[in-house]
C-alpha cells in the first residue's frame, strides 16, 4: 500500500516540469506536449484521491479530463497545421500578427 502523498508529490513534479516546458520552449509542438504532461499530473492527483477516499467520482472526472485533452489536442494540432501553412514556422515568437 503506497501512501497517497507519494502520488501527490509525483503529480506536483510532473506539473512543474510541464509548466517549465511551456515557459521555456518556443516550439509549438513541445508546448502542446507539455500541456499534455500537466493534464496527466492532474489526472494522477484525481485518481490518487479517488483511491484514497474509495470513491469513484475522481476517476469519472479523470475520464472527462482525458476527453478535454483529446479535444484540445485535435484543435491545437489543427491550429498548428494552419499556422505552418501560413507562416512556414513552428516558432511561436514569429506568430506575432496580433501583438501590440
Amino acid at each position, binding site marked *: 500500500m503506497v501512501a497517497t502523498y507519494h502520488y501527490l508529490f509525483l503529480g506536483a513534479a510532473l506539473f512543474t516540469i510541464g509548466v517549465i516546458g511551456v515557459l521555456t*520552449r518556443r516550439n509549438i509542438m513541445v508546448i502542446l506536449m507539455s500541456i499534455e504532461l500537466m493534464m496527466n499530473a492532474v489526472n494522477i492527483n484525481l485518481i490518487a484521491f479517488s483511491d484514497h477516499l474509495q470513491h469513484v467520482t475522481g476517476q469519472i472526472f479523470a475520464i472527462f479530463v482525458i476527453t478535454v485533452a483529446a479535444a484540445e489536442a485535435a484543435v491545437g494540432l489543427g491550429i498548428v497545421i494552419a499556422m505552418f501553412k501560413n507562416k512556414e514556422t513552428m516558432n511561436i515568437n514569429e506568430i506575432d500578427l496580433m501583438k501590440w
Partner: protein
Amino acid sequence: MLELILFYIFAAIAIVSAILVITQKNVVHSAVFLASTLLSVAGIFLTLHAEFLAGVQVIVYVGGILVLFVFVIMLISLERSVTERQFSRQWTIALITCAALITEFVYGIYRGKDSFLLPPAEAQTAAETLTGNTQIVGKALFTTFLLPFEIASILLLVAIVGAVVLAKRKTQVD
C-alpha cells in the same frame, strides 16, 4: 512492498522521460519520450487500482493523441523546425516564474507535512469491493454522470468539426 517498488519504478521513468520531453531538440524524440511518460502514468494508475483508467490512458493518449502528434510532426517539415530557435529568449522571466512555482510547491508541502497521512476512508461494503473497477466506473458514468457524459460527446463533436475546418481552410495572409 511490491506496490511501493512498482510505484518508484514507474514514477522514476515518468519524471525522467518528462524532463527529456522538454529538453530534447528534436520534436520526434520529444514525442517518443512523451509516449514513455504516458505509459508509465498508465502503470501508476494500475497501482492505484484504476484498471479502466489505465486502459483508457493507453488507448486514448498513446494510441490516439500521441499518434496525432506524430502525424502532425510528419506533415510539417522537420528539417526547418530543428534549426529554429528552441528555447525562449525571455528565459530570465521564465526562470523566475518557475522558481516561484517550485517555491510555492515546496512551501505548501512543508506547511502541510503534518497532514501527509490522511485519515483512512471508511471501509467499503463487501458487494462494492468485489465488483470490478470497470463495472463501478461504467455504472457511475451512465447514472449519476449521464448529463456530463453527453456534454463531453458534444464537445468531441465540436472538436472534430473545428479541427477539420482549421486544417482544411485555405487562408491568405497577404
